[in-house]
């Protein structure tokens, strides 16, 4: 018997009892809708949590700072401090899953921008390594090897400058109004005030720098930093930390302080920070754990991901479970319908066997009939799921976003049906039909022809 005939037979048999077939299909329809909508809510929740985390920082990035290793869950500090030197950079570069490593020097300096005064958190980076990280330029250009007094600024850097002649609220905190962004600083000159840490009496050295680019990312960690070529930052940092003009009293004080804080042995040329970009979140997690065990001070967004993932998995399991129970009930409906229809058609099955239907033919006809119930209910259920999902998003969206989405940001959707879920729902509904039809079909196929014909 060819496949086309099997489907045709199953179809015409299914709709011999229209009401019963439709009722059974409605069962599957409700089950599919329950499972799809429930899972779509779980997926929507998971997505919005991820999106939230990603707006704070890149999940693939692991940051190594100076200091001792600590546990992200308990905050407990342990082990010996490791030096962030070139050896460490090379070691990290060789780790599995690492795609780029960016060591940097950091220095905070006072600066003037136009009439405003403020503060620059300068990060010295190798321009080539920097371009391999995930930063993108909103406007302007990236740093190049040729730059020495050119810098990049983060989105919020401009808000760290204020006019000393204006009241406080006029500057940084313009609540309610649109915040200023760093785009206005492009191609402007910022004068840094390099002040030696150990001789406060000496007048600060003025160092002009030009902003050549503004980095994208409104609320990310790097929004408050400025980036300059490593060699320049190293030079400025050296000037600030120059100890040659220290008095004997200061030297003694410093030694005493270093002894107490346990930072005596720190290499003055060691990097302040090493940034690591990993292939994906899971390798970021293993790299972070690895380095933490070696005694490095690690900060990784990915660490906080784990808890959230666990939580959203539980939510999805609960929601999916509710849907699955509904579909299970529907599958019992399918089995019931099939058993009934085999009772009614016992004699017919016998006749078909006598005129040459094989065990396989009979079984396939009934399995296909059950599968048809499943897949028809599945298609209807999926279609209505899209409608219901859109409805949920429409009403919850206006509640969550206060009637309008933030500019440049997609409206938050609490129900998301990804293509895999749609496909999964259809396949699952079909399989539910097949599984529910298995026993009845087997029973039909095993009927002895003559007993079936005698049955009246």
């Amino acid at each position, binding site marked *: 018997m060819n496949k086309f005939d099997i489907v*045709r037979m199953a179809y015409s048999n299914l709709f011999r009892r229209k009401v019963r077939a439709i009722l059974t299909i409605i069962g599957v329809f409700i089950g599919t809708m329950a499972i799809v909508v429930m899972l779509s809510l779980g997926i929507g929740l998971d997505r919005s949590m991820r999106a939230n985390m990603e707006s704070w920082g890149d999940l693939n990035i692991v940051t190594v700072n100076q200091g001792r290793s600590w546990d992200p869950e308990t905050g407990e500090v342990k082990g010996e401090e490791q030096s962030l030197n070139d050896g460490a950079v090379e070691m990290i570069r060789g780790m599995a899953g690492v795609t780029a490593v960016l060591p940097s020097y950091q220095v905070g300096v006072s600066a003037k921008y136009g009439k405003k005064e403020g503060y620059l958190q300068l990060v010295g980076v190798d321009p080539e390594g920097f371009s391999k990280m995930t930063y993108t330029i909103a406007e302007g250009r990236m740093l190049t090897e040729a730059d020495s007094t050119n810098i990049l600024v983060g989105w919020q850097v401009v808000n760290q400058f204020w006019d000393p002649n204006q009241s406080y609220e006029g500057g940084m905190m313009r609540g309610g109004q649109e915040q200023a962004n760093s785009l206005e600083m492009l191609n402007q000159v910022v004068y840094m005030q390099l002040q030696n840490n150990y001789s406060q009496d000496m007048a600060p050295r003025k160092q002009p720098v030009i902003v050549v680019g503004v980095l994208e990312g409104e609320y990310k960690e790097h929004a408050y930093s400025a980036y300059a070529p490593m060699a320049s930052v190293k030079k400025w940092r050296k000037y600030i930390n120059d100890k040659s003009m220290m008095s004997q009293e200061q030297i003694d004080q410093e030694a005493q302080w270093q002894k107490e804080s346990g930072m005596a042995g720190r290499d003055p040329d060691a990097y302040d920070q090493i940034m690591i970009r990993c292939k994906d979140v899971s390798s970021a997690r293993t790299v972070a754990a690895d380095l933490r065990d070696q005694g490095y001070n690690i900060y990784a967004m990915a660490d906080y991901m784990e808890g959230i993932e666990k939580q959203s998995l539980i939510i999805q399991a609960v929601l999916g479970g509710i849907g699955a129970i509904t579909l299970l009930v529907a599958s019992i409906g399918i089995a019931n319908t099939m058993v009934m229809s085999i009772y009614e058609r016992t004699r*017919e099955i016998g006749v078909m066997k006598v005129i040459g239907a094989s065990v396989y033919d009979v079984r396939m006809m009934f399995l296909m009939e059950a599968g048809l119930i499943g897949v028809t209910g599945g298609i209807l259920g999926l279609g209505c799921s899209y409608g219901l999902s859109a409805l949920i998003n429409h009403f919850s969206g206006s509640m969550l976003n206060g009637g309008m989405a933030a500019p440049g940001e997609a409206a938050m959707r609490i129900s998301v049906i990804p293509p895999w879920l749609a496909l999964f729902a259809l396949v699952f509904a079909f399989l539910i039909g097949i599984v529910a039809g298995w026993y009845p079909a087997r029973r039909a196929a095993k009927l002895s022809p003559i007993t079936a014909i005698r049955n009246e």
Partner: protein
Amino acid sequence: MAPLIEIKGLTRKYRLGHEIITAVKEVDLSIDAGEFICILGPSGSGKSTLLHMVAGLEKPTKGDIFVKGVCINKIKESDMALFRRRYMAFIFQAYNLVPTFSSVENVAMPLMFDGMPKSRREKQAKALLTQIGLGQRLKNKPTEMSGGQQQRVSIARALINNPKILYADEPTGNLDTRNTKEIMDILIERVREKGVTLVMVTHNEELTEQADRIIYMRDGQINKILNQQTGEVTVFDHTVKDEEAQAEGPGQNDERRGERI
């Protein structure tokens, strides 16, 4: 030449409540290709059970059936389906058509199970139905036709595969005289012109006129075989066997009694 159908020591027992009933008892029979055999007997004589077993619709309790040298009670169910499709067909007293199918669809069904595409098999079915005088009833459902018409559809369904053997269980049992004659004419024409072997069960002696051999059954056994071509009559005496069986009975009981003591 080896016979087409060979039956050896065929026995079928049923359990009816606590009783065990022997419907067919130690039957031996050979049927040649192209023969028209009538099995005649009162109801309860085991003639239908014998036919069902020979057609492979039920399994014997004991004994073997060979069709074209193949022992059909021992082959796999899937092979049996193929065997039925290729070599034999069955005609029921109650027609047993599929009620939701039209005449054409009913007749084309065996070809569907054989995997033939819809257009081809329905063309063949139409041709055959027209040939047996049902050209006006191609699209009708069984409920829209008379008994005689339904039985003709069922015969067309049996003939569509060009079977070598036709089994018929009281094919005219529900029909009037005129329809009975028409049905018998179709069947006998097949035997005489196409060399089909026909094994027919009936309790109507009038239908046996054209049969090559008539097999008389009673109480699950063959009593007498009448060869209408040679006029030869073979009578079987089962009393000896039965006496032997009865003689064995008490002996077994004695043993059992012995065990109890």
